[in-house]
């Protein structure tokens, strides 16, 4: 290839200096003489730190050994993580009886063996020191016994009135047992009412949820949403989509992806053609698309970008009949969903299948949502309320005045894991067990059920939601285990008791219940009916505010999870904060720069928010991420960001029009990692056109190489990262953090460029308008064969292993940081302080015992998960064989939903990583430096301007 296309940022360079401000300056209060004195003293004393005499500590064996000895190696249990009520199948790694890591369950079709960032971080929430330890009555610590006494006094009164005035508020759930318990409660208390509240969207359309086979779709049109990132089936969808983007043996069956969205999402960033469109323009564009399908193209009234999008998409569908699927985001209106349904009936064939909604949103026993609830409270028909799991005080719309409504209810019981905003409004708060502490069951988006099994005894005096509901009805504390088993014992297809036991154990073992799925309704016959035309709204000329779930903390429930707080947001790379995302043109027109605080006013409510300029925003649209500004999240999440829920209205939860945005002149220092560890100005993230796939992308190697060749007779560990399939979801970063005991350093330290993530995801913007191109590039340690870091270490703390690993020896490291200076990839991280959690913190229970916890003054970096390599080697050596390909998977590889990361032995010609590094589009990052990195990248294949050739008729 002559010159691989270089991505140019569409925005002017923001970076002026490699180092954050102040990093290279001499501190003013330290004289040179003091410095030399301190350094000599440190040097003199440094040697003594290793001189501890071996201590005499205690070892305590158990009295009676458990069924399987606790000193055996790690064990895995299958369970499910709730994600907006849906199941994510996981395997939990436990060591010595404490769960330490979640991995995707390969047997679970919805998890496909992978995880997202939130699932990876869910393990930390189990050990959250801020979890509620005990029941609280009006803010004072109390006991379950007192609650039981108080409630039992009311129980008689409830029975006499047929429990009129009793209400239960839950989140929508897929759990069969939870639904059974709620129904039983409603049966026992005929006048009781059940309401459901979720701050996020619904994934069904009037009881039917569309399900997509993206591997079979040749053309995909996404309207809003974020189906490859924030969707209950995102992992499966992303895996299927990636199968049409992955180059294997020089070929790829490329699909075409079109996206219309008002604000940049990870899904939209994958699109070949992406139209940034304000919501009020959507109807117009879809009408024009419909016109084009009917052979009457009409592009009047469209902007240049819109016209080009419509023409290209129409051309895509014109030739032949590719399977085209349209996927619509949960935040879109019902008529858009209806439009997509008609589109799919006409073009999608069997790519889209509708099935009955899995979640309880439309349960006939449910009285309604928060709106109906508030109506009932205001009419005085609710006197006793139990809130399970939800945090409606924080997530309700400002115009609903839920706090006022709750104040009118004499008895509010909040049952949840944290003493959150809602708990502080309730008479009683009761601690709920974590999902890793109790039995339960959940269904995935596809409808498959998983039995959740507890991994440890509850850390606190907490009960499960199933137990609590059952107790409300019966007054007896049953075990969740019995409740879940009762549900499945009466499930269809169970014949005998022994049959049930066998099925039960099989379900626990596999993590999926083997049961027939309900039949799917037949797809509508494919026709060529014209698509419906939508009502076109007029442009009001005002600013539209878009309200979206934050990609890390979701609706706010993960706000107290430090891993997710410190995980850079996919595009902005902001940490510990949210910011209003705004287009550059608009920001310039208003004289705004990053961090300027604007006051956003609508409907009499004003919210102040710092702004962040992001490419890909639709004109006139400002995005406000939800989930921040919490006041009772805990010590991690309190006081971070601003609360965008205040801009929500019950009628229009996802956007507000007619908003005034005003510059306040104040500034907030947002912390973003985008300028940290930069390597820009070089050809780093490469893209190729489809016809260039087979050409060699790598630069020619230097003619002479003075370094000896690497031996071929042993393992040579290497990695290949596929930029073409990487979605930038950051699951790898959190997986790495969980696996390798990587500390969280906090906002101030990140601002100084001291974040500790061993793996970072760089992102590059290129192109403009519909050709906006985003490339995400995960950058771990490259494990260079000629590693520049090793040559400069004065104490040989970083050395090469015989298998090509760049080993880091923490005990030798004296913290000169020369290695980091000399690393061209900037992947080394230094412990500037003792970042370990305080002594006695439950967070330690999460630590991986196979990885050393680093102390202050020590350099660290990606090890290719050497502890996993060693474990794999031990297993193989016991059987006197070589390690098989795929037997060792790094944490990042295991988490990746799209299999963008492959790790293995480069000396094994049958290994996947060998095949990938032999692809023509495989290249080494900064290969011209002759560092010979073991990690290589596959360039991203971007479709050219012409649509795919029409497939041959079958």
């Amino acid at each position: 290839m002559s010159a691989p296309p270089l991505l140019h940022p569409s925005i002017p360079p923001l970076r002026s200096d490699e180092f954050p401000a102040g990093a290279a300056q001499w501190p003013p209060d330290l004289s040179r003489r003091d410095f030399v004195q301190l350094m000599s003293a440190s040097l003199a004393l440094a040697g003594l730190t290793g001189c501890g005499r071996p201590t005499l500590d205690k070892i305590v064996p158990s009295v009676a050994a458990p069924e399987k000895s606790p000193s055996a190696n790690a064990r895995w249990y299958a369970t499910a993580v709730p994600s907006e009520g849906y199941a994510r199948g996981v395997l939990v790694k436990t060591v010595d009886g404490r769960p330490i890591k979640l991995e995707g369950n390969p047997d679970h079709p919805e998890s496909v063996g992978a995880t997202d960032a939130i699932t990876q971080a869910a393990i930390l929430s189990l050990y959250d020191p801020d979890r509620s330890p005990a029941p609280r009555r009006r803010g004072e610590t109390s006991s379950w016994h007192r609650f039981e006494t108080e409630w039992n006094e009311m129980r008689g009164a409830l029975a006499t009135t047929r429990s009129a005035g009793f209400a239960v508020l839950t989140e929508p759930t897929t759990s069969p047992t939870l639904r059974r318990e709620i129904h039983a409660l409603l049966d026992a208390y005929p006048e009781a009412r059940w309401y459901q509240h979720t701050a996020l969207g619904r994934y069904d359309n009037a009881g039917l949820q569309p399900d997509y086979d993206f591997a079979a779709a040749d053309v995909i049109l996404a309207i809003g949403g974020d189906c490859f990132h924030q969707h209950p089936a995102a992992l499966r969808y992303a895996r299927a989509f990636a199968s049409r983007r992955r180059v294997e043996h020089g070929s790829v069956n490329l699909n075409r992806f079109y996206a219309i969205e008002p604000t940049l999402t990870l899904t939209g960033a994958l699109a070949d053609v992406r139209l940034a469109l304000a919501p009020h323009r959507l109807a117009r564009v879809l009408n024009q698309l419909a016109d084009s399908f009917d052979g009457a193209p009409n592009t009047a009234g469209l902007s240049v970008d819109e016209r080009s999008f419509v023409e290209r998409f129409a051309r895509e569908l014109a030739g032949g009949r590719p399977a085209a699927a349209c996927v619509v985001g949960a935040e879109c209106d019902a008529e858009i969903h209806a439009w997509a349904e008609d589109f799919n009936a006409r073009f999608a064939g069997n790519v889209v299948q509708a099935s009955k909604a899995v979640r309880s949103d439309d349960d006939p026993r449910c009285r309604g949502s928060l709106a109906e609830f508030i109506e009932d409270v205001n009419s005085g028909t609710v006197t006793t309320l139990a809130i399970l799991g939800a945090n409606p005080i924080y997530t309700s719309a400002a115009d609903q005045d839920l706090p006022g409504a709750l104040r009118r209810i004499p008895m509010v019981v909040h049952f949840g894991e944290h003493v959150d905003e809602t708990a502080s409004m309730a008479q009683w708060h009761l601690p709920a067990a974590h999902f890793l502490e109790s039995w339960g069951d959940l269904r995935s988006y596809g409808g498959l059920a998983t039995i959740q099994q507890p991994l440890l005894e509850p850390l606190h005096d907490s009960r499960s939601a199933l137990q609590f509901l059952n107790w409300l009805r019966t007054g007896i504390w049953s075990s969740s285990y019995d409740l879940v088993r009762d549900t499945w014992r009466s499930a269809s297809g169970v014949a005998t008791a022994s049959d049930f036991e066998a099925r039960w154990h099989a379900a626990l073992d596999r993590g999926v219940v083997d049961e027939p799925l309900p039949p799917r309704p037949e797809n509508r016959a494919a026709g060529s009916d014209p698509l419906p035309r939508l009502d076109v709204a007029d442009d009001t000329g005002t600013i539209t505010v878009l309200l979206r779930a934050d990609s890390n903390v979701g609706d706010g429930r993960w706000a107290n999870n430090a891993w997710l707080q410190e995980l850079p947001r996919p595009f902005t790379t902001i940490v510990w904060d949210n910011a209003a995302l705004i287009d550059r043109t608009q920001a310039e027109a208003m004289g705004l720069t990053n961090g300027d605080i604007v006051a956003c006013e609508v409907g009499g409510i004003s919210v102040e928010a710092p702004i962040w300029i992001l490419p890909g925003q639709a004109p006139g649209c400002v995005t406000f991420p939800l989930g921040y500004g919490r006041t009772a999240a805990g010590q991690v999440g309190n006081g971070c960001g601003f609360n965008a829920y205040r801009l929500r209205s019950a009628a229009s939860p996802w956007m507000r029009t007619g908003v005034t945005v005003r510059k306040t002149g104040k500034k907030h220092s947002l912390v973003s990692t985008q300028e940290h560890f930069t390597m820009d100005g070089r050809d780093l993230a490469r893209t190729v056109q489809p016809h260039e796939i087979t050409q060699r992308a790598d630069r020619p190697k230097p003619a002479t190489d003075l370094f000896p060749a690497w031996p071929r007779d042993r393992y040579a560990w290497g990695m290949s990262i596929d930029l073409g399939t990487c979605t930038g979801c950051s699951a790898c970063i959190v997986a790495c953090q969980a696996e390798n005991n990587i500390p969280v350093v906090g906002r101030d330290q990140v601002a100084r460029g001291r974040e500790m993530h061993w793996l970072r995801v760089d992102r590059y913007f290129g192109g403009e308008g519909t050709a906006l191109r985003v490339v995400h590039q995960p950058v771990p340690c490259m494990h260079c064969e000629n590693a520049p870091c090793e040559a400069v270490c004065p104490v040989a703390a970083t050395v090469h292993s015989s298998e090509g690993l760049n080993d880091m020896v923490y005990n030798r490291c004296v913290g000169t940081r020369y290695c980091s200076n000399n690393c061209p990839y900037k992947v080394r991280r230094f412990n500037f302080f003792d970042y370990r959690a305080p002594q006695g913190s439950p967070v330690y229970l999460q630590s991986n015992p196979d990885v050393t916890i680093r102390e202050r003054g020590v350099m660290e970096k990606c090890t290719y998960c050497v502890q996993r390599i060693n474990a794999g080697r031990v297993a193989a050596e016991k059987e006197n064989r070589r390690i098989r390909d795929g037997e060792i998977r790094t944490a990042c590889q295991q988490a990746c939903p799209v299999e963008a990361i492959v790790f293995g032995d480069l000396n094994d010609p049958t290994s996947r990583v060998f095949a990938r590094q032999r692809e023509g589009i495989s290249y080494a990052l900064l290969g011209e430096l002759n560092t010979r990195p073991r990690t290589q990248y596959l360039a991203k294949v971007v479709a050219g301007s012409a649509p795919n050739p029409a497939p041959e008729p079958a």
Partner: protein
Amino acid sequence: MNRPLFTARTTHGVRIAILGCVLTVGAAAFTVFEYYRSPYWNRVGLAPDQPVLFSHRHHAGELRIDCRFCHSTVESSARAGLPSTQTCLVCHSQLFRDAPLLQPVIRSAEENVPLSWSRVNTLPDHVHFDHSIHVAKGVACASCHGEVSDMALTAKGHALTMRECLDCHRDPEPRRVAHAQVFSRRTTSATVSCAILEPVHARPLTNCSTCHH
């Protein structure tokens, strides 16, 4: 003609003094270093106080009970494992029930309070040692733990310094024994059985990350 600033005698004296300093510092460093690595500093041969006066000499030496009877996970896990109280009671629910020496064990079982032993052999936290692979590759227990079956009170048999690890990792072959002899009570002369496969994949034994990660 200029006279030298210092006489030859002075220069000579200074030279000897400098050499003396260097030698003294060197000797001091050597002494400290050797002391630090000495068996004494590493508590070799010192038996710490234990809740039960358990004798390996009696159980392993005289009664010839296999190591794995009590240290049951040594072949499957990184840790060899310490016997639970119930393991002791496999025999002692019948034998010597009333012996005063055994009372802590009986009490532990009755009160369901585990015995709290003093650790004898220990490695620093940044060392990741795996018993199972060493046993599988023919490293005898006695190679690291010494002649435990001769110990009336259990003490450290070797200093377990990094030098000892490396001595073996650099050249394991002479120290490996046939699998049948791994758990034998005495270190046999180093005879490698033909049954042991060549450690073809075990090249990286001296890589730092083999033990430190």
